[in-house]
């Protein structure tokens, strides 16, 4: 039940885009039509679900202070937490590359529809942000990390699908001042949606 709460929380209240504004670069760049936006959203969700538990295990059994005590008593006061940034990003980058190769080999159709987005994901701040939040919040178990990862991913997917749908309509039905067209108006829409999402802050679960 606890984990389910975290899952729901991560989708709505701690939404990566509207609450933390992470992963904005690809969010703004790839939200011109719904189909590609959903493709990228699925890829991001997938990477969050994979990397968050791995980084959680790394954090608990290798990086945090005293985590190496399973190697023997003389390692009990080793603190490697200053290495966590490098370890996390290395895991994320290598997982991205691995997933890219696996998808290319086993499912060429998925690869051709997702292909260009996969390398982009290594530098999506939402993924590294997820791992850093995980480190900050001291999750109790690897399942919590898994649920939070899934929730953040779905929240991101929801956000990018919504903004892409709005932008598709906007292109045909509205008359925006010229200098504001394209990226400018997208910023303003995102801000308004962010303000709307703030209403979720009042919910306690």
């Amino acid at each position: 039940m606890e984990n389910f709460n975290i899952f729901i929380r991560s989708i709505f209240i701690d939404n990566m885009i509207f609450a933390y504004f992470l992963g904005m670069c690809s969010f703004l760049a790839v939200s011109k039509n719904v189909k590609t936006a959903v493709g990228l959203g699925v890829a991001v969700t997938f990477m969050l679900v994979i990397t968050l538990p791995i980084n959680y295990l790394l954090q608990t059994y290798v990086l945090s202070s005293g985590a190496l005590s399973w190697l023997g008593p003389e390692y009990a006061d080793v603190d490697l937490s200053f290495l966590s940034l490098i370890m996390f990003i290395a895991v994320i980058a290598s997982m991205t590359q691995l997933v890219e190769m696996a998808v290319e080999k086993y499912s060429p159709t998925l690869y051709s529809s997702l292909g260009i987005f996969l390398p982009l994901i290594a530098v999506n701040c939402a993924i590294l942000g997820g791992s850093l939040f995980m480190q900050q919040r001291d999750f109790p178990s690897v399942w919590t990390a898994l649920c939070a990862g899934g929730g953040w991913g779905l929240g991101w997917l929801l956000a990018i699908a919504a903004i892409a749908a709005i932008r598709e309509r906007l292109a045909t039905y509205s008359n925006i001042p010229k200098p504001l067209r394209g990226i400018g108006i997208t910023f303003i829409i995102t801000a308004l949606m962010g303000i709307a999402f703030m209403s979720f802050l009042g919910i306690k679960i």
Partner: protein
Amino acid sequence: MADKINYKQVFFNPFSKNNPVVVQILGICSVLAVTAKLEPAMVMGMSVIAVLAFANVIISLIRNTIPTNIRIIVQLVVVAGLVVIVDQLLKAYAYDVSKQLSVFIGLIITNCILMGRLEAFAMANRPWPAFLDGVGNGIGYALILVIVGFFRELLGSGTLMGFQVVPDSWYAAGYVNNGLMILPPMALIVVACIIWVQRSLNKDLQED
């Protein structure tokens, strides 16, 4: 080709015509998160200038030995190393600011400006122009951070760098700080206004 690079253009273009934030739309996340006050915005700007300049030089030095398949990992590791140094330095000498910036110093690693410049410029150019490009883009980024931070702190808290600028007599006359400016969504709107102003001055940048 390498001799024909116009150093002046490499350095000054990112300030306005090719600004990484408002024209290339890179590195937005940190612009939104750290600009509620002017001071963290300036510290963040300086950190990015330093990391970007050195990462560009290092990648440019080893650009011929990196295998193309794993170049993203190599770039990320170089950047991550530099970010860890900046992070530890801030913790040692500016602890308060480093607390305020929290995860966002770590997120410099995934700042798209870095990857964008490394891929687009450092992989194809010699160290000196790469250094200029790094500093130029870093300053372009810091410029936007400072502008956004200035307006958000001035309108949101009535202070600048922590000092009160809005006189007490205004408050007595009924002036109220705009609490909305402190919230992250307003950073998006301030950036949108900067884009608006810049694009109406510079017609080439407008989209259809």
